[in-house]
């Protein structure tokens, strides 16, 4: 069963390889690509089921016991988010088939997509801090390539800026890993967790912790590290925008969650103020940026900045309730923002413009698209009854309970601003008198995926109890790093491989 853990990563890689081998065969690439994505999704389901029923599952690469070898750990958090990622990826893939032009698909689109997914899954599953760096780089470089995929000026520009900023972050990551290794002599997260708890004097660890937070903050696009996001997320091909905003930025939040809940547990007070401050500023910046946009994708991108502010805010408050809200935000934003991007792509395809001023009146011609878009808008704006509301509600509750009245008020106030710009955007696109231009009908494969996500959001709202219950379990597991550590080191006693024989 433990072999299930690396499978999402390996399946993605294998799919990528096969699609490279397939050369320029379009049909073959699409079939393999969708098949691989589907298989990964199914694997992720099994993985989550396994973890749910058996507790954290650990896979030691090469059978080398932790802390020496690299291990992959699937606990509820990681397997849950892997499932989320693979689901959204599958939807985005289907969309891509309709969206990405044939030549692009014949080129490297499919392998790059799956390699991106490989990086994402790896980053979620790995239990080794340096391996995390490697997977970060995988997902980053494939996203640079995908952002620049269609080769337009602005895409190249966005990709260059995105890559530059993230390269600096990578250097900082190495600095942090080097520092951590210099002090602790190990790279395994569970081992680090054990050892840091034994320390009486934290020494330079606060520095390192903050460095990690900053590095992950770049991925999570916290202020002042977010500058790449509005450019990259708005310029990328639409399904990639959906993946970047839906899943990729969550990797940063996830990593902060990981290092703070597993490794640096005793040092949390040292960074909490920073995190809260930056999260608050991020929320404001996201709102400011979104208010200024007339380009629908750029607006959605800025909205992602703001949402990341909420996610990080919950993380910073750090109470169980706040963490549940953060998780709920992650799920909500992953589904809703991905859906909004996909639908924005439909609208752009139909009207031939990204400028909302040039759209209008689409509700008459595309009522279902309008409805789905509205669901997304409501979800992001946290309009009840969709579960985006509950994320917001829990966050505010948690902030109040933890005594952060100001932050609660800020979150509430900015929620209104979010509501404003999203509804205004929706109005601009779907209401008003149409400009009378003939609409270009987007392929069905582009519309379907958005509806699927909208459906998932609605169904998820109806069955919110199991979702929240699951997230509470996730949170409870996170709160007990001992579980994680035990699961990792139990691995040693369970395994018996050739290395045992040679000793």
């Amino acid at each position, binding site marked *: 069963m433990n072999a299930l853990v690396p499978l999402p990563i390996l399946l993605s890689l294998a799919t990528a390889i096969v699609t490279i081998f397939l050369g320029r065969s379009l049909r073959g690439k699409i079939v393999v690509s969708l098949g691989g994505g589907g298989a990964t999704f199914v694997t992720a389901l099994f993985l989550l089921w396994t973890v749910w029923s058996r507790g954290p599952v650990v896979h030691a690469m090469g059978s080398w016991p932790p802390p020496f070898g690299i291990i992959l750990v699937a606990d509820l958090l990681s397997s849950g988010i892997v499932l989320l990622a693979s689901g959204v990826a599958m939807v985005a893939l289907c969309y891509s088939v309709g969206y990405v032009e044939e030549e692009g698909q014949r080129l490297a689109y499919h392998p790059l997509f799956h390699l991106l997914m490989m990086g994402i899954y790896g980053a979620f599953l790995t239990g080794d801090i*340096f391996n995390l760096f490697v997977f970060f780089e995988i997902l980053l470089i494939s996203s640079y390539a995908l952002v620049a995929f269609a080769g337009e000026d602005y895409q190249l520009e966005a990709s260059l800026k995105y890559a530059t900023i993230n*390269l600096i972050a990578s250097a900082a990551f190495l600095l942090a890993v080097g520092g951590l*290794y210099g002090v602790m002599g190990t790279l395994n997260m569970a081992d680090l967790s054990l050892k840091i708890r034994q320390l009486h004097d934290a020494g330079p660890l606060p520095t390192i912790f903050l460095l990690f937070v900053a590095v992950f903050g770049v991925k999570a696009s916290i202020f002042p590290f977010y500058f790449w996001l509005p450019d990259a997320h708005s310029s990328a091909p639409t399904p990639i925008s959906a993946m970047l905003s839906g899943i990729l930025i969550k990797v940063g939040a996830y990593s902060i969650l990981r290092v703070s809940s597993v490794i640096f547990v005793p040092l949390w007070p040292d960074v909490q103020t920073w995190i809260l401050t930056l999260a608050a500023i991020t929320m404001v910046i996201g709102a400011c940026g979104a208010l200024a946009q007339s380009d629908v994708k750029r607006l959605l991108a800025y909205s992602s900045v703001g949402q990341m502010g909420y996610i990080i805010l919950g993380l910073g408050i750090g109470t169980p309730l706040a963490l549940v809200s953060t998780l709920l935000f992650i799920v909500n934003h992953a589904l809703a923002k991905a859906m909004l991007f996909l639908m924005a792509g439909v609208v752009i395809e139909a009207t031939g413009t990204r400028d909302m001023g040039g759209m209008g009146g689409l509700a008459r011609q595309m009522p279902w698209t309008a409805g789905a878009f509205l669901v997304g808008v409501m979800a992001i704006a946290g309009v009840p009854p969709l579960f985006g509301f509950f994320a917001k509600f829990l966050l505010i509750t948690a902030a109040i309970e933890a005594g952060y009245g100001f932050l609660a008020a800020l979150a509430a106030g900015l929620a209104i601003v979010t509501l404003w710009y999203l509804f205004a955007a929706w109005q601009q696109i779907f209401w008003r008198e149409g400009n009378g231009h003939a609409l270009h009908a987007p392929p069905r494969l582009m519309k379907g995926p958005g509806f699927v996500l909208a459906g998932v959001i609605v169904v998820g709202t109806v069955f919110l109890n199991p979702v929240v219950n699951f997230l509470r379990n996730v949170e409870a597991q996170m709160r007990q790093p001992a579980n994680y550590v035990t699961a990792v080191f139990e691995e040693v006693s369970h395994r018996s491989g050739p290395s045992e024989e040679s000793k």
Partner: protein
Amino acid sequence: MTTLLAMTIGTLFATGTFLVLRRNALKVIIGLSLISHGANLVLVTSGGFAGNRPPIIGPGGVGYVDPLPQALVLTAIVISFGVTAFMVVLLYRLYQRTGTVDMDQIRRLRG
């Protein structure tokens, strides 16, 4: 050794930073390369300098330096090579399409 190396690495980061803050995109990429040199050296420095022979097991097996940072750096070097290669080509394409490598002029995306 640590102090002098720290100074060296600091200089690599500083010069890299200075270059990254220039207008010419090529300088930016060169700056990034310097920074990644620095970062690689950080990793190799992290293990400290105990030991005085390369980690290649031979007779009289003591005094090896810490092999792990070396392996990590190897990975890091390769990765930064890959990324640099990509960026160089990206820059090339950008120049082809926009006719400039001036980062102050490559600012269609703003606001």
